[in-house]
């Protein structure tokens, strides 16, 4: 902060002083030694000393301060160092002469404007010429030697917000208006403007001529933009546009820096920004000292770019040193990366980086070169040596995901559908799932499954494998013989041929099961409902042993032959016996026991493959690792893998992970499955889960209340005879017998009967079998 810089003749540092009241505007005298601060309740001149502001003069004199002191704007004459002008909120234009001997320095008072005067401006070279712009829509030019205005300019539109004499053209001045227009006038021709164009939507609060470039005008508006216009051509052209974050209250070109300008905002944002107009998205420098909106900014000297003065509503006056400014550029991210909603990827980086390795060349890549088309060409070709920072322009690349893959979640659906969670020996399940993951291009998951198999598979157990894999016994037991290192790839390669058909078999079996479930109508079926009133857990278990027979003959026999309760429960229970079989060693004996059964074989194998771990390692040994892995997957958002592994491992891992976490995973996975409408998979997961809270999900809202079809009373007891009217309640419309199995009815006419009967009937006829004339539809 204490750094002193010697530029031209000015010394100083970042410093401030408290004012007594909020400032509305500030202005400096030509030699940059004094600054005048004006506001509603303040009008003072401060001297700029090396180490602080010194109050020189208070221009608010008199017992009853008049509204003429309530300044909206102030300007110090750049030629005559004793001359000041202020614009008052009550519509007065006042000039002040500091050379007057008495305390009251007020020289002249013009009360020609009817509304608040927003801006006063001295001619840069002419001593006696003053211009004012007012809320009433008029601009007036005063000759200070006369008592009245010499000419009046009518904007023919709304209030004037700013007027500025051109620095280079003697007769020209610009005026900005509340309706978004900017007008150019010739001071000699008050009858009509030379030029008019719409610069902003909403009021244009400020404008500033470029100190060197003849035709350049910067404007700032309520629409949060700063625009630079080139007036030198026939058509006014917008050459730069800077987007700020709040309404722009003031804009001032930075001296000696062709492309720099300073802005401050009207509301909300208290900072002062210095922009390089060629880099419109990030400020070149920021001054963050003020605690309320900055109302006035001015460069201290018209040829010194390092000192900025500012006044603010927080009643402070600051001198900012450019060295002490913060540079947002330094903290900005040089690269950007973002995912789109549909899996698209956008990547922005420096152009030099983007063009270098062309080998990246992706399908569907679009490059949008040069962020802003308004960049003039020459700028790229010869960068100015004096520039303070390297100009960068970034390229934006968008990588579109392939058209077919919707949202990139197919893998989830496919995985969910093809994973096997039960119904096979453990080793086969793992193997199958590893293949599935591999097919879907997810090597990590695939490896995980293979490793799991290696970790937890029982060493060869001929009797077991014979039970289940008669066609290829001997394959599975070998698994343990492969070393950890070569596990997945090599193994998969070798076993591929053997496995392939097997997997197909499995798949088709699995699909068959699915089909069955679907046609029998689980939750997925909306149109048809089961006519079963009560579900008894007792029944469920008592019937289990009949399963295999039932499955085979399901569609061949009339439904009545099987009690319906059994039929529904059939599927939930079906996989359970199968699932338990591969695990039978565990179930029958303790885990330790089962390991003890097979030490010999694994020991011999170990020596061959030189495993890092001793073969004595019980599966338990791996549990912490597996647990960690599952948690990792869950953390990564791949709750699918976590749950699938959890189910397949079953008892092996279950006790290691606390119930709540498991429940949480299950819930998330089931929720996901249901969002993708994978009802069957979700149901399977629910069935296979070992958490009490999850399994009971299937029991929720399974009660069906039915009314007697004759007397319309609710059927309360079990059985098929209504209490009240003593008639059979649900009679099949086709065969007129009581339906004790699957009852299906049309929601349109409420007739129905045996599922098979109705199905058959509707194949032949469109009409309701009861003869009611309704056109029933079976979906």
């Amino acid at each position, binding site marked *: 902060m204490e750094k002193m810089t010697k530029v031209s003749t000015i010394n100083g540092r970042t410093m401030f002083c408290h004012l007594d009241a909020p400032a509305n505007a500030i202005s400096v005298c030509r030699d940059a030694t004094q600054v005048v601060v004006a506001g509603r309740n303040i009008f003072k001149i401060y001297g700029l000393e090396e180490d602080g502001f010194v109050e020189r003069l208070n221009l608010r004199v008199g017992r009853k301060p008049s509204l003429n002191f309530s300044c909206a704007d102030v300007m110090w004459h750049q030629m005559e160092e004793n001359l000041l002008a202020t614009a008052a909120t009550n519509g007065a234009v006042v000039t002040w002469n500091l050379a007057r001997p008495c305390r009251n320095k007020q020289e002249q008072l013009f009360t020609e404007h009817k509304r608040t005067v927003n801006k006063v401006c001295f001619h840069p070279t002419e001593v006696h010429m003053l211009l004012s712009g007012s809320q009433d829509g008029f601009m007036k030019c005063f000759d200070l030697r006369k008592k009245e205005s010499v000419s009046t300019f009518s904007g023919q539109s709304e209030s004037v917000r700013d007027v500025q004499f051109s620095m280079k053209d003697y007769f020209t001045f610009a005026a900005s208006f509340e309706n978004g227009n900017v007008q150019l006038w010739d001071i000699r021709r008050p009858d009509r403007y030379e030029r008019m164009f719409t610069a902003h939507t909403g009021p244009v*609060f400020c404008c500033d001529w470029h100190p060197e470039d003849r035709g350049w005008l910067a404007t700032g508006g309520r629409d949060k933009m700063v625009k630079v216009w080139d007036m030198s051509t026939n058509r006014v052209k917008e050459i730069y546009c800077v987007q700020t974050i709040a309404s722009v209250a003031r804009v001032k070109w930075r001296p000696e820096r062709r492309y720099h300008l300073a802005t401050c905002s009207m509301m909300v944002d208290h900072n002062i920004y210095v922009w390089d107009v060629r880099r419109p998205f990030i400020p070149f420098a920021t001054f963050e000292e003020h605690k309320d909106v900055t109302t006035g900014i001015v460069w201290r000297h018209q040829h010194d770019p390092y000192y900025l003065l500012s006044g603010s509503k927080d009643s402070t006056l600051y001198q900012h040193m450019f060295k002490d400014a913060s540079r947002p550029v330094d903290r900005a991210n040089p690269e950007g990366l973002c995912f789109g909603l549909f899996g698209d990827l956008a990547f922005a980086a420096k152009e030099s980086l983007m063009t270098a390795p062309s080998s990246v060349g992706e399908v569907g890549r679009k490059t949008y070169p040069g962020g802003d088309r308004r960049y003039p060409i020459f700028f790229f070709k010869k960068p100015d040596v004096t520039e303070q920072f390297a100009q960068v322009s970034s390229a934006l690349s968008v990588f579109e995901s392939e058209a077919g893959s919707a949202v990139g979640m197919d893998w989830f659906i496919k995985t969910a559908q093809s994973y096997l969670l039960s119904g096979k020996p453990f080793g086969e399940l793992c193997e199958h799932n590893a293949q599935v993951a591999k097919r879907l291009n997810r090597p990590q998951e695939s490896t995980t499954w293979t490793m799991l198999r290696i970790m937890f598979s029982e060493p060869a157990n001929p009797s077991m494998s014979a039970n289940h894999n008669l066609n290829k016994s001997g394959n599975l037991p070998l698994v343990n013989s492969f070393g950890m290192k070569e596990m997945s790839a090599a193994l998969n390669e070798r076993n591929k041929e053997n496995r392939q058909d097997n997997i197909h078999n499995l798949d088709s079996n699995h699909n068959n099961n699915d089909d069955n479930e679907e046609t029998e109508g689980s939750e997925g079926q909306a149109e048809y409902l089961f006519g079963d009133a009560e579900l008894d857990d007792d029944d469920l278990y008592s019937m289990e042993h009949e399963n295999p027979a039932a499955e085979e003959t399901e569609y061949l026999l009339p439904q009545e032959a099987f009690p319906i309760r059994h039929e529904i429960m059939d599927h939930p229970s079906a996989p359970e016996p199968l699932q338990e079989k591969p695990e039978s060693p565990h179930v029958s004996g303790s885990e330790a026991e089962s390991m003890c059964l097979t030490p010999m074989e694994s020991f011999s194998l170990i020596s061959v493959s030189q495993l890092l771990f001793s073969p004595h390692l019980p599966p338990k040994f791996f549990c912490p690792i597996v647990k960690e892995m599952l948690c990792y997957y869950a953390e990564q958002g791949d709750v699918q893998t976590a749950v699938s592994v959890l189910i397949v491992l079953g008892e092996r891992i279950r006790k290691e992970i606390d119930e709540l976490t498991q429940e949480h995973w299950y819930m998330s996975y089931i929720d996901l499955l249901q969002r993708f409408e994978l009802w069957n998979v979700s149901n399977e997961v629910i069935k296979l889960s070992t958490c009490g809270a999850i399994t009971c999900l299937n029991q929720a809202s399974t009660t069906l209340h039915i009314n007697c079809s004759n007397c319309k009373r609710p059927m309360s007891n079990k059985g098929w005879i209504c209490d009240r009217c003593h008639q059979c309640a649900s009679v099949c419309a086709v065969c007129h017998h009581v339906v004790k199995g699957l009852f299906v009815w049309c929601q349109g006419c409420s007739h129905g009967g045996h599922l098979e009967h109705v199905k058959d009937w509707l194949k032949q006829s469109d009409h309701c079998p009861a003869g009611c004339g309704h056109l029933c539809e079976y979906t």
Partner: protein
Amino acid sequence: MKMSRHISTGPSSFIPENEIIAATPLSDSTVMYLDEEFNGRVDNLTQVMGLHPHYLQAFLRCHYYLLRMDGPLPLHYRHYIAIMAAARHQCSVLVCHHVQEFEQIGVCSDWLRGLEFCPQRLRNLNEINKILAHRPWLITKQHIQALVKTGEHSWSLAELVHAVVLLAHFHALSSFVFGSGVNPDPEVTDVSGVPDDLCPPAMASLCTCHLTNSNQANRNSQRNAGSELEALMERMKRLLEEKEDDDASEEEMFTRFEKEKKESLLVVSKGFDEEGVPPSPVARFVADPSFGYQDFARRSEDNPPTFKAQDYTWEDHGFSLLNRLYSDVGHLLDDKFRTACDLTYYNMASHEGVDTSMLRRALFNYVHCMYGIRHDDYDYGEVNQLLESSLKVYIKTVTCYPERTTRRMYESYWHQFRHSEKVHVNLLLMEARMQAELLYALRAITHYMT
């Protein structure tokens, strides 16, 4: 009495029905289109406002943006806030309408049973609701802080701004409804779906009767009407000429404002029982009903400091803040204010080609004056010359306690002017009031933010 019956059947109980129908070239305009698109029908309010189709368009666009389009608040909140705001002025027309709209949304319908049934979060708005409705100058950043400070029932700034705009909008709209005697919509009162006693026909007739029962006295005051208009024109002309050579000193200007402010104290509508707030079904949406308007400048008390219009203007500060927190609504409001202020037909009663800007500005600034907002560049002496005392009574009643407006007040000023011109006056009053409320509220929010 027969007369009043006849009149009260139309959209407005002050204005003859045929006048509105005749003067409404609406059938083909985009305005109707707008209204129907959102509303499905044209209600009485729209018909009355339709006397100024140009304004109506800006109004409806803003109105429906606030209520139906994207915004920080959920739809049912918006209607509930509308109900709360209108209920402050016992404006049953608006309350009924929005109760119905609320019903249609079909959620939380038990809130309609009263304030104690709605969430604490909405109830927290009561404080600023009553302040904004009656004494907006009392709002401070502490009020904003209390609402925004983190906690269970806190508001985000964007939500709060939306709520504030809604409150101000419906307070001002209540003024318009009472000021031009808009009748309840027949459809609204007929609907049986509206819960219990909220909008029974009896209620509707209550407010119309109340508004119309006092038209017996207006005949006699019409005799010197002709000269009245001439005098007003004369005064405007003189003011315009005087403008050039009127070098009133600062003190003079200041005292004129103070005088106007003070005099607005004396302008009191007579014959209204100060305490007697009739218990109405609307009362369930009102907390602290005794909190009413109090004059800004009260004698022998510490007055709150005058709000200097130049220090916090709508165009610069209000707009910027609003647009930042609730985008687009700034533009719509800006458009609405501008349309209202610039609306003119260059007519005064039977005279044509008259520049009415002076009159319009006087009306606008007088409302601000009553709310303690001073425009530095305005000579408040003009108000005194242009606005006769009966008009001042009307203005004060309509803006400060619109529920007390009577037909007699409506008819007691500007006898020769057309009804559409009086509606125009109402529009100005409404917008001036809304802007004043918004300025106070947004200034408080700005203070909170800095």
